[in-house]
């Protein structure tokens, strides 16, 4: 048992290093054009967002449509912090990340507590509502720059600092995947699968729901800080429900509750629109068709048959090994 875990840990570490090596080689080997360079960090940001949302949607089993709201809180908090500070860029960014993450986590707690009573579609609509409220309030407040946006943010998280961003991406993945595998994570999954049964065996449902909300919000906030320092200008309109849905789509395409899938989906969905840029008008249309086709394929008989076949093969090979 122990050996197995060790092995998978080693494989994961190797994967992380290989991915890092490939990206570094691509950046410094001159294989990439500027356009491809400029989507490396957005890929990282989306991976963080998708993995953090995966905790809520995939493991806690609650559909939320307000993830962009937490991202925007983190982004604004982080950007205001680094704008106010006058330290070396990386130190500023580090402090900004912490502030952004914590502020977003606090808001997740404030919002998470009352909505614990709700489930399913009702929770979805309330989180959508909160996303819109956050957007509206940021637009209204003076110190956020309102509709003009908050500009003059140092673009610290560009591809030259890929290593720095990558460390935080790994941290996000590590924390969330370990959490899911821990006792707490099992409790969270139990809440998803049957919350009445979970309650009956003594799991404090509301405690675990709040915990998942806060952790997810924290990492979404950090992703927001990276976003702010990648783009250099923040506007409340960019964090609308379309952005939340974009993140949700990544989680769902990755196969809900599958962190690796979410990572892959986040990278692909960030790169896809850029690859399809030459298709201009038809780009969004293709995006829609791919989305529908993927969902249909994921749930099609064809796929179930394939999986069954694979399982059958496996069973056969086990039998052979047994012999």
């Amino acid at each position, binding site marked *: 048992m122990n050996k197995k875990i060790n092995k998978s840990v080693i494989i994961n570490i190797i994967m992380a290093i290989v991915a890092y090596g490939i990206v570094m080689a691509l950046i410094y080997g001159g294989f990439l054009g500027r356009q491809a360079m400029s989507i490396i960090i957005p890929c990282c940001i989306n991976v963080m967002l998708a993995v953090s949302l995966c905790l809520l949607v995939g493991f806690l089993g609650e559909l939320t449509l307000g993830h962009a709201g937490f991202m925007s809180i983190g982004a604004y908090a982080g950007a205001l912090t680094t704008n106010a500070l006058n330290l070396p860029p990386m130190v500023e960014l580090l402090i900004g990340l912490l502030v952004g993450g914590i502020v977003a986590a606090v808001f997740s707690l404030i919002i998470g507590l009352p909505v614990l009573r709700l489930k399913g579609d009702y929770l979805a*609509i309330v989180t959508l509502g909160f996303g819109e409220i956050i957007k509206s309030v940021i637009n209204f407040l003076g110190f956020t720059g309102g509709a003009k946006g908050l500009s003059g943010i140092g673009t610290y998280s560009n591809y030259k600092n890929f290593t720095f961003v990558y460390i935080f991406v790994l941290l996000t993945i590590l924390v969330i995947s370990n959490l899911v595998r821990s006792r707490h994570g099992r409790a969270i999954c139990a809440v998803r699968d049957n919350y009445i049964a979970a309650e009956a065996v003594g799991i404090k449902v509301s405690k675990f729901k709040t915990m998942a909300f806060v952790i997810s919000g924290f990492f979404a906030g950090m992703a927001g800080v990276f976003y702010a320092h990648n783009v250099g200008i923040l506007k409340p309109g960019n964090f609308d429900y379309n952005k939340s849905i974009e993140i949700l789509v990544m989680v769902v395409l990755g196969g809900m509750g599958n962190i690796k899938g979410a990572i892959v989906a986040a990278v692909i969905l960030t790169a896809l629109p850029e690859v399809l840029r030459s298709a201009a008008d038809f780009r*969004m249309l293709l995006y829609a068709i791919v989305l529908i086709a993927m969902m249909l394929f994921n749930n099609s008989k064809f796929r179930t048959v394939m999986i069954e076949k694979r399982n059958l093969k496996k069973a056969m090979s086990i039998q052979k090994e047994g012999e």
Partner: protein
Amino acid sequence: MSLINNLVEQLINGLRTGSIYALIALGYTMVYGIAKMINFAHGDIIMVGAYALYVFAALLGLPVPVCILLTIIVCAVLGITVERIAYKPLRNAPSLAVLITAIGVSYFLQNVALIIFKATPIPFGSVIKVPSIKIGGIHISGITIVTLIVTVIAMAILTWFINKTRAGSAMRAVSEDKGAAALMGINVNKTISMTFAIGSALAAVAGILFICQYESLSPTLGALPGIKAFVAAVLGGIGSIPGAMLGGIVLGIIESLSKAYISTQLADAIVFGVLVVVLLVKPSGLLGKMKAEKV
């Protein structure tokens, strides 16, 4: 006096937007109540309805009643097609998968419209000409009255249809338990198709009234009313037909009053704030039924 006058006018403004929300919300609630899915593409079917009316009335120059009929047919057929292609294969999939597909359909319809009709808004005068009424110093535009009447009629017919007809009871049976309904000899697929046809026909009617009220076509015209109507449906208790009507009207009035007397800047925040509060106090919405959880 002028203050009361002003209040009455603002209430009428609320009714005006509220009745459109209510009409759209009826479609949402209908589909949700029976097929148990949030049809995110509902708002875009309104958009298709508006463009269809434009094509029939302005480009082909057909008589108005024919245009309206054709528009409703186009949307109903579109609704059935979408259901067959995109939703039916997912009937046993997790509800989230269906939701994502619906979002995909919504993007698809918007972008097809964008490619065909381009992004530039097209002006399109109202095909329904009703003179406005003046009571005291208060103007009520004709189209507002028409919308309100149509919404009430639609609600009444729907309620009657679902509660009194055979097809309606089939729908309720499918809503309760698909498996059991199938065993009782109900054609589940046909019933769900019919639900989508009715829901989309309602969207077509909403699209027609919307375009007659606001007179400008763009590929994203259905998106915002779609979301607001969705909120209205949840506010009223999704799945409940009178609830959708109530939710729509209440939402419209809250929106109007908060814009008029609190702040135009925070109106959206207030609308969603009310939704959150209502759901926290009564988690199933104003008129929704709370189902007991079974282990």
